[in-house]
């Protein structure tokens, strides 16, 4: 009797487990199409792109013997004699195969002017005879500088963090010592700092503008609330380019606001409000403000009005009731909005590109420059890698602390 009951129980458990597994499998199958889709169209491409920041086989492919010879050198003192011989024969082959340009372009990222040095040396490398070092120096005196071979050596490793070093405004000497770039060439660290600053400023502005508005809407009468909310949602739904256009029309030197200023104070009152940092800040705040208002508003709705009344009746002054009771209860909403605004602001590209002028550019714009104009894809990937890891870290914080199920659109 007891035995039979035990069998039934374990049987039941097994069935339960089996059906549970089947249910889990079905849940997973439902998610799978999108997961696979994103893996192929989104995650894989980004991963592939980021790999370019730590993987560059150009020199190892185009100048293979030189790369081998230099890898065993410690970068101190003179490069090994074998490296000169290897480079002479590599250059000869690369010149014949027409691949020298790739190596030359690659090395020019590291040492300005090395492109023409390699190209002109490659043209005559077929006639080089030992002693090779002298032959090289005869073509171009810069070959006597060990730093040239140092740069070649660093580039000869297929996998390296060289692009990340450049992305932090630093460079490597032949012996591996990392030094800062000259001050007039430093730009990336400053742009990262500026990006953080802009994101923080925009978040702060969104909070200062958004919190009172959310409060106002949350405490308006039912009839008004919906209309007010629609006024917030309208810009939210409107194309980013439309909103940016609107700000250009308003802020440019001959725009609406300056026209009004000129009417009152004369033409001298016209000020530059766009194509600089101000333009970026104003337009970005406008665009991101709804992301702050909406979560703040929905949390405010859930705060029971009785709580503040209770505080008041217990003798608290109104501002005390607000700061000590109401405000802390709405912080999760405002915090969620602020974090989201900050995360989105870090990656902004379009608005700074259109209204940022010279001083309102962010790190995304620099990534675009290296992608599209300078073609230094390794550096673009390194800058992107740094930006992405920052954003992802904050995203994880958001997911852990606030929870992704609190993301609401309107």
């Amino acid at each position, binding site marked *: 009797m007891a035995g039979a009951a035990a069998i039934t129980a374990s049987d039941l458990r097994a069935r339960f487990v089996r059906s549970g597994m089947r249910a889990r499998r079905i849940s997973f199958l439902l998610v799978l*199409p999108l997961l696979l889709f994103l893996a192929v169209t989104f995650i894989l491409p*980004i991963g592939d792109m980021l790999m370019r920041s730590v993987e560059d086989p150009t020199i190892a492919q185009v100048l293979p013997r030189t790369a081998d010879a230099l890898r065993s050198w410690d970068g101190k003192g003179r490069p090994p004699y074998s490296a000169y011989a290897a480079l002479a024969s590599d250059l000869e082959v690369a010149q014949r195969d027409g691949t020298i340009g790739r190596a030359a372009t690659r090395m020019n990222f590291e040492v300005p002017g090395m492109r023409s040095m390699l190209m002109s040396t490659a043209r005559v490398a077929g006639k080089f005879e030992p002693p090779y070092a002298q032959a090289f120096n005869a073509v171009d005196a810069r070959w006597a500088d060990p730093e040239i071979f140092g740069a070649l050596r660093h580039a000869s490793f297929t996998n390296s963090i060289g692009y990340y070093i450049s992305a932090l405004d630093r460079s490597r000497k032949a012996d591996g010592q990392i030094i800062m770039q000259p001050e007039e060439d430093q730009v990336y660290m400053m742009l990262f700092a500026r990006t953080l600053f802009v994101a923080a400023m925009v978040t702060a502005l969104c909070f200062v503008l958004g919190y009172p*508005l959310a409060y106002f809407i949350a405490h308006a009468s039912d009839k008004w609330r919906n209309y007010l909310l629609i006024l917030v949602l309208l810009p939210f739904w409107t*194309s*980013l380019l439309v909103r940016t*256009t609107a*700000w250009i029309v308003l802020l440019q030197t001959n725009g609406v606001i300056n026209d009004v200023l000129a009417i009152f104070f004369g033409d001298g009152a016209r000020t530059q409000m766009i194509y600089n940092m101000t333009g970026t800040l104003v337009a970005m705040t406008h665009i991101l403000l709804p992301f702050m208002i909406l979560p703040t508003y929905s949390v405010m709705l859930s705060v029971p009005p009785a709580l503040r009344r209770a505080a008041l009746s217990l003798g608290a002054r109104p501002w005390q009731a607000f700061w000590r009771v109401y405000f802390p209860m709405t912080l999760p909403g405002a915090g969620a909005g602020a974090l989201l605004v900050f995360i989105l602001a870090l990656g902004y590209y379009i608005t700074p590109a259109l209204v940022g002028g010279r001083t309102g550019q962010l790190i995304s714009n620099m990534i675009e420059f290296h992608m599209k104009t300078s073609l230094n894809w390794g550096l673009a990937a390194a800058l992107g890698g740094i930006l*992405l890891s920052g954003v992802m870290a904050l995203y994880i914080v958001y997911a852990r602390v606030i929870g992704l*199920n609190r*993301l609401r659109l309107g």
Partner: protein
Amino acid sequence: MAAAKRRFEWATIEKRFNAAYAIAVLFFLVAPLIVIIPLSFNAEPYFSFTTKMLTLNPEGFSLRWYQDIVENPQWLQAIGNSLIIAICATALSTVLGTLAALGLARSNMPFRDLIMAILISPLVVPIIIAAAGMYFFYSSIGLAQTHLGIILAHTTLGTPFVVITMTATLSGFDRNLIKAASSLGADPLTTFMRVTLPLVAPGMISGALFAFAASFDEVVTVLFLGGPDQRTIPRQMWSGIREQISPTILAVAVLLIIVSSLLLLTVEKLRRRHTPQGAKAS
């Protein structure tokens, strides 16, 4: 008594101040959009109000910039491209996103948080990084400079909206209704068609409209992946803004504002029907 009165006054002042401030912020939000509407009817190629416009002289206004859009094959092609791409991307992302949300809403979903985080990540990954990655990858498989490439890119960017809206809808979904339906003898298909679908449809449509709006507004992946045959409305606006803002851009902007207002009102209507009164706070 005096204290109560003072408290009352303070509250009124605070209220008035708050109202004034809030209205100023609302003005900041909406005024830029309103300003460009009359300017798009400017008879002169300027971006400021002419004297004729301010005196409401009919000569100051014209439809010439709207006519420009209709007569310019580039704009017409852009509108066509935008519609094709947005509709296809919306369909794809709605199907994929809805399926995923149905899975995520099941109580026995393994690794729910992680998967949710992955599915929503296209919303937060800086667009320049996503576009750069797609640029290399799609070029290597021959999808760059095709409509399909951009549709896939926009589908990717649109799915988080569907997932978010659908998950929110499903979280308020009462499973007992399904049980009730089947206990009343409905077969699973009937239950789905008559009970589940009508309940989740508003969320699905909202998500789809969000995905549509996202695709309709997307320019960065088009800049990277699109060739001249894939010019969309935002792409056309982008080069217009960078090169020379002709008032035609304002006319297009006004049309886009109308489109987005319609989308917004539809979503709000759906939300109101979907959410019973008072349940809005959640």
